[in-house]
Structures are given as C-alpha cells and as structure tokens.
C-alpha cells in the first residue's frame, strides 16, 4: 500500500491500513536510533518547521530528533517571540513558512481544528502535534506502536484509557486508532470528564477503575490537566487519586503483565503512584524512545506523498 496524504491531522481520518503502514515504517526506522551514527539521508535537503503555539518540550524535541535523524533541517519557531505576537493570523504565518520553501510544518496549537485549517490553506505538509482537545495523532501512534511491540498485536486487546477523556486529544487519537485496529477500548473517568456520546466511537465507558483494570491488557493513564478548562467542574486532586489513581494495590488485582502507559509528563501522586511509574509494568520510557521512530515514519511518509504528487 502507498501513503498518499500530504498531512497527518488525526487518526479519525486514517484507515486501519494507513495506520498499519505508519507502524511498519516506524519499525524499520527504529533501528536507526541504535546505530553508532544515528542518521539516514531520507529527508536530506528538506526543511521541517516546528510551529508550537503551546508550550511543549517532549513532543517538540521528539519531532526535532526524528527530523534530524532523517537528515532534515529543523527550524523551531517560538510563537512568544515571533510575529504571531504582533497579531499575525495562523494562515498568514503558515503561508510565510511555505514561502520560505519549507516542506513540513509540525504544529501544536491550543485550538481544536487549527491543523485542519492550516492544512487546507497550504500546499506543504502539516503534521498535527496536538490541537486543542481534538487529536494528537503521533502520541497515539507511538502508544499503539509500543503496545504492539509489547503484546504482539492490537486486535482483541482490552485497553483502558483512564483520566480526563473530555479534554484529552491523546484520548481521542488513541480511541480512533485502537478501535480501527480492532482493540476493545474502555474509557474510564469520573462522569464529568466523559464527553457526550463518546460511546459512538465504539468504546465502552466506566467510572469504576478496579472493575476496568481486572480485564485490561493495557492501561493508558492520561495526565490530569487541572489547569486546562477553567469552566469545567474538576474533581479534587486527592479525591481523584483515591478513585482513579493507578497504585500498586490496584495493579495487584489486575492482570499480572498489564502494560502501563502514560504520555507524560507524569503528575506523580495524582494519576499514578511513583512506584507504578517506575515499576515493572511501566513502559513509559520505551514510549519516548518509540516516539522517535513513529515520528520519523510520519515525516518520511508525508514527504514521500508530496514528492510523488509533484
């Protein structure tokens, strides 16, 4: 199968075959990071621009490392110091970057749909590095990649996603990806943090973490962002930890080899205990490593699609 999309905006818009292709491509790129000279010339002469409207270290650095391992040139635009501050619109900023003959924009934005809008307005590739509450496709892809690496498959796995589902782009992307690949997904959160009609994506919902953990092959624990939505009702932090925090006591009652994931950065003692974060079931640092391979695959595929189009 051939990748034909110039952009990666979300997993909702991909077929299971397209997701499979990214995962396969990532597998072949993973080895590059183990070489003594961690570089291949796949994107030599290409320019990738990191355009981040929200503070982010890990995603931005992960994309930068991925692009550099493919020999692309990387430019970071910090929106706090650019003309964005002077009121330039997103589309104008994008068109200026395109006029610089950059090839790929990697964008993080606090508004849902910002990447969709930018991709429509530009000919160059747009990779969504997280938009509002909407999607964070590369995070979900690296979660799925890690899961597949650990458990050998995705189909028929029981996967739990725990935390603030309503405001989480990581949750949405994971849901679309996992459901398309045939996993049984349960989202687990306090009632107030479950978005309306989420069942229509094909997931089950629950507010009982112990019940959910019993049957889960993997649990993806979301970062609680108490600061994100000032209007929404949030549970008390301590109360949340008591009801939903992933602790060793809870894990003791779960499947022995349950895979514990977290997109980071972790709030230790809020969504999971330190013992669990650093424990034998945790794959959190492997996720970070795999993030490089997955992002290399995405950068590579969208560039290929654009080249074959031109």
């Amino acid at each position, binding site marked *: 199968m051939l990748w034909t999309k110039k952009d990666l905006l979300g997993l909702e818009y991909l077929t299971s075959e397209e997701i499979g292709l990214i995962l396969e491509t990532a597998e072949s790129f993973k080895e590059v990071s183990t070489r003594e000279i961690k570089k291949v010339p796949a994107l030599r002469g290409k320019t990738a621009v990191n355009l981040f409207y929200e503070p982010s270290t890990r995603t931005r650095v992960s994309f930068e490392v991925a692009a550099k391992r493919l020999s692309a040139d990387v430019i970071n635009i910090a929106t706090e110091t650019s003309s964005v501050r002077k009121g330039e619109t997103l589309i104008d900023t994008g068109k200026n970057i395109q006029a610089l003959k950059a090839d790929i924009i990697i964008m993080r934005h606090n508004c849902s749909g910002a990447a*969709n809008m930018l991709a429509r307005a530009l000919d160059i590739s747009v990779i969504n590095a997280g938009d509002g509450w909407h*999607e964070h496709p590369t995070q979900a892809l690296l979660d799925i990649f890690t899961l597949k690496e650990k458990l050998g498959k995705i189909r028929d796995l029981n996967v739990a996603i725990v935390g603030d589902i309503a405001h989480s782009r990581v949750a949405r992307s994971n849901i679309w990806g996992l459901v398309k690949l045939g996993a049984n997904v349960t989202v687990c959160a306090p009632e107030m943090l479950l978005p*309306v009609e989420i069942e229509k994506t094909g997931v089950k919902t629950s507010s009982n973490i112990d019940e959910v953990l019993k049957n889960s092959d993997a649990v993806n624990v979301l970062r609680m962002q108490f600061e994100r939505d000032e209007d929404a009702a949030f549970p008390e932090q301590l109360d949340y930890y008591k009801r939903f925090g992933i602790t060793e006591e809870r894990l003791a009652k779960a499947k022995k080899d349950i895979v514990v994931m977290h997109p980071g950065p972790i709030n230790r003692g809020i969504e999971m205990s330190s013992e669990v974060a650093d424990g034998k079931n945790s794959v959190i640092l492997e996720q970070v490593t795999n993030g490089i391979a997955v992002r290399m695959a995405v950068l590579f595929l969208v560039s290929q699609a654009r080249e074959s189009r031109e």
Partner: protein
Amino acid sequence: MSILIKNGRLIDPANKIDALLDILVEDNKISQVAKDIKARADNIIDATNKIIAPGVVDMHVHLRQPGREDKETVATATAAAARGGVTTVLAMPNTNPAIDCTESIELLKGIINKSAKVNVLVCGTITKARLGKELSEIAALKKNGARALSDDGCSVDNDDLMLEAFQKAKQSGILTICHCEDKKLSGKGVINLGFNSTRLGLRGILNESEYKRVARDIELAEKAGAAIHIAHVSCRESVEIIAKAKKKGIKVTCETAPHYFALTEDALLGYDTNMKMNPPLRSQEDLTVIKQGLKDGTIDAIASDHAPHTENEKDIEFERAEFGVVGLETELAVSITELIDSELLDWTKLFEKLAFNPSTILGIDRGSLSVGGVADIVIISGEKEWLVKKNELVSKSKNSAFLGRTLKGVVDYTICNGKLVYKK
C-alpha cells in the same frame, strides 16, 4: 413608470391565488391583476414559465451600519437583498451605536434614506446598548418609526426587566422579538453539543440554552398580554413549546432560518467557520422537527439572520471565529431547493413564510400582490439551478454556508416600490 408582467404563474398567498395571470404595475402600485392584460407599459416582462410572487420580507437582517461598515453597509446589504428577491428587511439594532434612542434611530434612518435599494424597516433595542440592564426609550423608538424591539444577539436575563419590557411594548403597540439564549448554559460553546462536538474537541451548546429561554419569554409575554416573536428557532423543543403556546391562544409567532432546515451539525466536521452560527446547526432530528413546524404552521416565517463578517473574522481558528452567516442572496433559493423540491410546502405556503406572514407579524402592508397595494414583486425561474460562488455574492462579506452548493430557483427580476431594483 409602468411595468407589465405577462404569462407568469402568479403566487399570492394573501389572496389565495396560484394561477397564470398578468400583472400591471403603475407608479409604485399594482394596478391590475388579470388574464391577458392588454395595457401599454414602459417595460414589458415576459414571465413565461416563471413564478411571480410577492417580494421576500426578511425580518432578521444585520446591516452592520452604523459602526461596522467593513462588514456590510445599508447599500451593499440592500443590493444583496435585491439579488435575492428580498424587497423588505428588518434591520437588527446591534449596531454601533445600538438603535436604542431617538438619536441613533434618526442616524440610521438618514443612512437608509440615502442608500437603501429596498425597503428597510428599523428594529430598536429592548435595553440600552443591549446590556440587559435598563430599558431603551421604547415609546420614543416606536414614535420614530421602529417596527419592533429586539436585543438580538443577547437575551434579557433579568425576568422582571423582561416583563417590564413586554408591558411597555404592549403600551406602545410594538412587537418584541426575542433572541432566546441562556448564556449561562451556552457558555463558551461553539457548536451543537453531541457526538460531533466530542469528536471535534469543541465546546458544545445544549438545546436547553435555547428552549428554556423560549419558554420563559413566552410565559412573560403572556403575563403582560404582549405580542412576542421568537427569532431563529433551531431546535425541536422550541418548536414543541411554541406549538403548545399557540394552541393555548398566546400571541406568539416565530421564524427559522434556511440553514436550520438545510444543514445539520454534520456540516461542521471539517471545521468550516462558515457553518458556525448562533444558535448552532443542530441534529438531523431537530431539522426534521423544524421542517414539520414549517409544514404544520407552528413556524410562521423564514428569515435569513443575515450576519456578515469579514474574512479576518472568519478565516481563523474555529473557536475564535465570529458566529453568523450571510443569507440574503440565498434564502429564497435554499427554501425552494429544500422545501418545494421535497414537496414539504407548495409555492403559496412558501411565500406565506417568506412574505405574507412576516408582513402580518410586522404589521406592514406588504407581502401580497393585491390590486392597489405597493408593488414589491419577485420573478423567479423556479426550476433553474445556479452555483453559489463567493466572488458573485453582492454582499460585502462572503461568509455564506452555501458556497459551492447548487441551488434551485434563480431570481430574474426584483421590483421594489414599483421600480426594477434587480435584473439578472
């Protein structure tokens, strides 16, 4: 100046006419409606295979002047109206300054006298600057020609103040038009609450934020014995509440906008800001009830809620973009496409909603083709299709929800006050 329109199919809900008849316009009046009129005229229009109907009376239009001439002016909006077959508009008062006192209404009337191409009626605000704190000069507004009152864009939250407004409106004999929205419930919502708001990661707006306010406003109007008109009805519960009130004999009328019977929330899946309006596009279920309400008469009128915004305000991140769409140039064609084609309404019923009923609600002598009446006439090729193109829109703003859509019904001529104001 005389115009003779021959061989067309004449639709006139006021006189219950749907027949092949000629119509003669002399000076600004309709002087004769009959078969095969043999009079001399300065201008003879052959309307063979065309529909001749009363010009559309659109009771919900934002002209943006004074104050936001970058979005629209009286001149550009009324040119757009003429192109859309609209001969009368009611100008919403959320301008800058707001139309809340004698000075501002005089200012607007001056602009209208200078630049309007079709009839423009003025709506005053309910409260000063639409802040919901203090009533406007209601009696003075009425005296100076305001046809209705509305804080459109806002609802008056305070029950006592709203009741007082209805009482004052009743004393002055003026209609109150209610924008029904409880902003405590709609909050920062940008689209309808449901699966789509969940998948798009956007804040949702409940039907409740609309219909609860519809129920409250009807209750207060009833208490005051005042006439009430509900603007832009978008959801099923509102239709049900209004139907019940009508059955009870309460003096309530309402309108919906073409986008609420032509589009659903699914139009938002690509984050198209031209699909962003308030109230938001609702579910298929709501759309079905809106259509049923048009058919059974619960919904009296179709009005565009023409809301021009510049590209700078629309071509940006979805949640930051302004609410609202232009509609003067498409409302007639969208109505024909969605309602006539599906046989939900016949032509007579359609022009009841588009011309006759809004005239009756506003108490104006328009919206009919009665002999002796003012000649506001639209001539349409009812079967002809056209593509809505951005660069062909006459309105200063291009934020139409129907760009790229093929619609049925081409306006060939618009006659307003006996003068030809648009010819295709």
